């Protein structure tokens, strides 16, 4: 590392003007040093994320036959990636002409809406409870991380143990308490199964929202509450006029993150419903997954998944804008 030359001693200033590096080619400028530090990560991300992203994009315009090895291909470093036959917008046209796509899209929107609402409200509710003064508060923070640290396969398993028609503990408890006569089949009826998915995913994700909100609540200055107390404001008024406005940036962040997560959710569907009964829990991401990997139709599959990617891109813009605004507000 050739960074010992005297010209490079100070950190804040040196590399700001890039022309310096031109005048002193031997010295590793701040910018060059920074690039040296990020280059391994950048190369990895370019090769395993950005390139596949473009390759998948190409496939969404191609007639992908996984068994055919001939035809045009990219050849780099001795490996050969087939380009398949270009078919223009055919995959997208077929996707948009398919009523299953549209019914999945509406179902996805319901899923996302219901999930975001449940996760935000539950996250906020838990945060308000855990922000109170009670014995064992630090322990509760640890417990918050349990649902969130489980693999979605285990989350699914564990809720099967609770909701199953035969051996589920919830049916057992309700039956024993005399609240139900017959057992409830949670996964048999389509709309109910979809709502169960929403709630199970919420169980897994809401604690993270709680963590963010708790951190936010702790940073609200005490004086604001004291002033409100002098004015005789009760709990709900303080919540509405002080706590919630202060949490607005965090709430918005949670809204965006949970929206993206809900659009992409796949693994729980795999473990709990496989998109069924019939297609009643088939969301766009499940439809794309199924098309690509159950039927090995990579062309239409990537086309479906790319419509999802477009939505995420849009949400990233929103997120970016919010984060920027938050930093500006802090500065």
């Amino acid at each position, binding site marked *: 590392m050739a960074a010992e030359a005297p010209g490079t001693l100070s950190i*804040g200033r040196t590399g700001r003007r890039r022309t310096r590096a031109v005048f002193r080619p031997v010295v590793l400028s701040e910018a060059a040093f920074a690039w040296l530090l990020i280059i391994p990560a950048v190369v990895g991300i370019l090769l395993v994320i950005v390139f596949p992203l473009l390759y998948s994009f190409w496939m969404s315009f191609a007639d992908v036959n996984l068994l055919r090895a001939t035809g045009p291909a990219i050849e780099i470093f001795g490996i050969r990636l087939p380009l398949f036959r270009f078919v223009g917008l055919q995959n997208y046209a077929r996707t948009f002409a398919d009523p299953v796509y549209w019914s999945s899209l509406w179902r996805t929107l319901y899923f996302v809406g219901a999930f975001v609402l449940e996760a935000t409200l539950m996250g906020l509710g838990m945060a308000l409870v855990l922000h109170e003064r009670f014995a064992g508060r630090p322990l509760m923070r640890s417990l918050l991380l349990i649902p969130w640290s489980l693999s979605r396969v285990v989350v699914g398993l564990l809720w099967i143990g609770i909701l199953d028609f035969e051996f589920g503990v919830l049916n057992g408890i309700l039956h024993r308490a005399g609240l139900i006569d017959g057992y409830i089949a949670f996964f048999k009826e389509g709309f109910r199964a979809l709502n169960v998915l929403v709630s199970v995913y919420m169980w897994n994700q809401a604690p993270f929202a709680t963590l963010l909100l708790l951190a936010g609540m702790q940073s609200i200055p005490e004086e604001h509450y004291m002033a409100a107390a002098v004015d005789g404001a009760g709990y709900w008024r303080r919540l509405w006029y002080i706590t919630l406005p202060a949490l607005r940036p965090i709430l918005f962040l949670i809204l965006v993150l949970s929206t993206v997560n809900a659009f992409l959710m796949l*693994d729980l569907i795999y473990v709990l419903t496989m998109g069924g009964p019939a297609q009643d829990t088939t969301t766009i991401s499940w439809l794309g997954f199924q098309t690509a990997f159950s039927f090995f139709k990579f062309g239409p599959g990537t086309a479906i998944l790319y419509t999802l990617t477009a939505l995420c891109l849009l949400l990233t813009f929103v997120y970016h804008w919010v984060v920027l605004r938050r930093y500006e507000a802090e500065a």
Partner: protein
Amino acid sequence: MGGTIVGERGLGRRVLVYGLVGAVTLWLVGPFVWLFVTSVSYQKHLLARPLSLIPPEVTFDNYRMILGLVRFHAEGQAAKILPSMLNTLIVAAVVTVVNLVVGTTAGYAYARFRFPWKGVSLYVLLFTRMLPTIVLIPAIFLMFRALGLQNTLTGLIIAYCAFTLPFTIWIMKAYFETVPAELDRSALVDGCNRLQAYYRVILPVSGPGLVAGGAFTFMLCWNEFLVALILNTKPGTTTLPPVVAAMNAQINIDYSVIAASGFLGALPAVLLVLVFQRYLVQGLTAGSVKG
């Protein structure tokens, strides 16, 4: 504590708060505890009605079955659990180490220096975090097939590294921003070069950030399901979550046995997260990562 229900006095409110805390605890921990209870129960007791919440008989037979200590009808499935657990451990450990070296270094550069393309590359990082991983998999599937990386742990490691790096960089960037830049400056004045300032002065005081980034990466890899399911289909090459999911999909295996494998599989990540929870919470709330 501003904004709380409990004032200076009021027994009723105190009861309310403890009631609510109890409800939240039950909601967070109850399901996981029940998973454990089912894993030490006999299936017949789970099916018995009226149901008894405390198992009439505690047994470790389910664990004996999945650990291959007793023979039973699905022992072929159960025999995959330990090897796949080892695979998961190898993959998660290697990815964590790579992340801590590569991701931390990049996070440091983003936190400290100005350089051309910084804004754009940060934006790309942010975007990859919001990206549906699944859209990349058809391409990675074909790339790995061409490279012979399908059904190998190396392939899985490469894929996971790329997927987790953006998170690690983001967490570490947020962490390094809390470390005063005067530390770097004084190290430079004392005669370190920039690299030495980083690994002799900054890294040693960055323990909490490293723990947060490392534990989070390990947890993500330990729990990852779909990518392993698709890329590593050959028996013996895959990780634990696909194996547990496959057991779950088989009708002839008792739920209590599946619960045991699920609980055993969940335990390492849960313990890791609980042990490091303080650092994790700090790191994650600073980096506002999606979970």
